[in-house]
């Protein structure tokens, strides 16, 4: 398999995950509403998603995207390390590139750790029924809001969910703008615009996801 194919997979899955994050953050913003309306809307939304066969299909695509993104990133990182050979005694790479661009794998490990914890907290309980059972709300929907509310009243989880958004932000900033180049977008002015969009996107995602647990904590 060629260098290009492996990179195309990472870029394409990465872009898909970036779109997913927009949808995810939009849904999470329901948590910011006053509790009475937030609980009903949030639970109704998550039930609607789970019962929609199209969304179920997209969710499988999502799992596959994460798995392929991680596997191919690991393969490429190992191959690239081999290509480099022994490193320099003195290397001032911060003078010609950003720290994030040099450490995407390192940042990715933190994000993977976050995804595992996040799936155990929510997905495992709601979808797989592993762990403490989940109750129903007054409308008869699975009370995902209650899980969120309880989780984000544990300060350790709140801190974990906030701090892990920092590597996410750096990873998204470099990843998003690079994905377009990997997929062959080479218009110079367009790339400059995309670099700015990537920065805004990374800020909105990391701050958006990071601030919600904090707000729920003080609710």
């Amino acid at each position, binding site marked *: 398999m060629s*260098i290009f194919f492996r990179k195309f997979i990472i870029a394409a899955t990465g872009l898909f995950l970036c779109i997913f994050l927009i949808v995810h953050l939009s849904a999470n913003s329901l948590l910011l509403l006053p509790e009475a309306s937030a609980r009903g809307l949030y639970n109704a939304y998550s039930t609607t998603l789970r019962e929609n066969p199209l969304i179920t299909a997209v969710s499988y695509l999502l799992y596959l995207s994460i798995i392929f993104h991680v596997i191919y990133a690991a393969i490429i990182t190992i191959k*690239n390390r081999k290509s480099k*050979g022994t490193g*320099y005694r003195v290397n001032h*790479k911060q*003078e010609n590139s950003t720290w994030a*661009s040099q450490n995407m794998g390192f940042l990715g490990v933190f994000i993977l750790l976050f995804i595992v914890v996040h799936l155990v907290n929510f997905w495992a309980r709601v979808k797989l029924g592993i762990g403490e059972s989940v109750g129903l709300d007054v409308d008869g929907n699975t009370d995902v809001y209650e899980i969120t509310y309880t989780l984000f009243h544990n300060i350790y989880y709140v801190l974990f969910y906030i701090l892990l958004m920092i590597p996410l932000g750096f990873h998204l900033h470099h990843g998003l703008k690079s994905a*377009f180049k990997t997929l062959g977008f*080479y218009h110079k002015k367009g790339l400059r615009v995309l670099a700015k969009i990537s920065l805004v996107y990374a800020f909105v995602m990391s701050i958006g996801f990071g601030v919600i647990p904090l707000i729920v904590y003080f609710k």
Partner: protein
Amino acid sequence: MKVTFKIWRQDSPDSKGELKTYETDGLTEDMSFLEALDHLNEKLVLKNEKVVAFEYDCREGICGQCGVFINGRAHGPHDHMTTCQLHMRSFKDGDTITVEPWQAGAFPIVKDLVVDRTAFDRIVEQGAYITAKTGTAPEANSIPVPKEVSDAAMDMAACIGCGACVATCKNASAALFTSAKINHLNKLPQGKAEQHTRLLDMTKQMEVEGFGSCTFTAACEVECPAEISISSIAEMNARYVKAKIFG
């Protein structure tokens, strides 16, 4: 002017290298970096020591021979500059300057600061030319080429194959070099006929040589003396898809 050089010394490809320290006096700010190394070598000769092996040719920034890693940067502290164009005025009296050879699996060390860059030649052999016999120089205007196309091709042709892109890349990727060679010809009408085979053959060789894959850190475009942009790599990626579909 006095500086302390810490220079990578390695007798042969298989021997173990190490950084050796040389206190060097009598330098002037007007000396180019290579002249400073010449100065050091003259002193070493007088002391009956082995001189430091390093490559150079034109000493005017166009041949791409003098690539070395200076104080943690390809070709030294400035962006877009070859080693021969670097002058001692870029350093302060009393500075310690670490000089290392390019580090990449595909660029094995020959001796001291000299590395084997023939991997680049083998990529070029895979199609960085047109196979038609052109004879003597043809009439320049017999094939009309729009100005923006010839300018863009010329930007790519500016690559001198110095290897700084590979040397500075954390993945030792040759994507900037290979893309420049491919895009140079694939943009021009003379290169169009073989554009897909050129791209597929050259990129395949790039992989065979053991160069890594590009992760767009953009370090290469900062160090490239010819200021070739990483959008060139994105263009190669686009052409790769095109070659796979139409090639």
